[in-house]
């Protein structure tokens, strides 16, 4: 909807493209700060981009 490539988004929010890819694939859970930056980039609420899933709560605890 924004015609943004992963590289463009990564540049815009100050992370590497690999981080965008890892977030998309669910390998990395972004910090609240990064999550807000991503949602602000798309001008939407944070809940529109990220959903809280209790079944995956244990992914990043260790």
């Amino acid at each position: 909807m924004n015609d943004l490539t992963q590289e463009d988004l990564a540049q815009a929010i100050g992370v590497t493209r690999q981080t965008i890819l890892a977030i998309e694939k669910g390998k990395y859970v972004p910090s609240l700060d990064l999550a807000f930056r991503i949602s602000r980039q798309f001008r939407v609420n944070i809940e529109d981009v990220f959903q809280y899933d209790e079944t995956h709560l244990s992914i990043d605890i260790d």
Partner: protein
Amino acid sequence: MKKNTFYLAVGCIALALLAIFWYSIEVHRPFVIETAFIVAIAVIYFIRKQVTDIIEDERTARITEQASLRTFQVFWVVFCALSIGAVMQILYVPTFPREAIPVRPPEILGPRMMGYFQLGLLCLMIFLYVGFRIYYARKYGEWDTDEE
């Protein structure tokens, strides 16, 4: 500075350090390589600040943090176990009966053995760090590609 230029500079510094290392062995002056190593790390930190491309973010920082923490958690156990053994050698004094058992001087490692000992610890630390780094890099999708 572009990140490739930075990596090239790091490679050159590593080669220079290797040359200085062998030189310091030739002249038998550890001070040369010790000083060069500290200067090299300082230079790398300095030129890293000049890189304009994004080479580190919160995910890479997390990989580094987790790998460092796990390395520390394993390494300190091994290091303390070996150190306790060494301290025991220094503190060992037969107390009873003093006349019957001659008091031996503590067995202290010679400089050469100490070098091997340090080399072993250094290699252990490097292997642990690299291993944990690879593990966490895979976990946080460092080498993932777009293809499913």
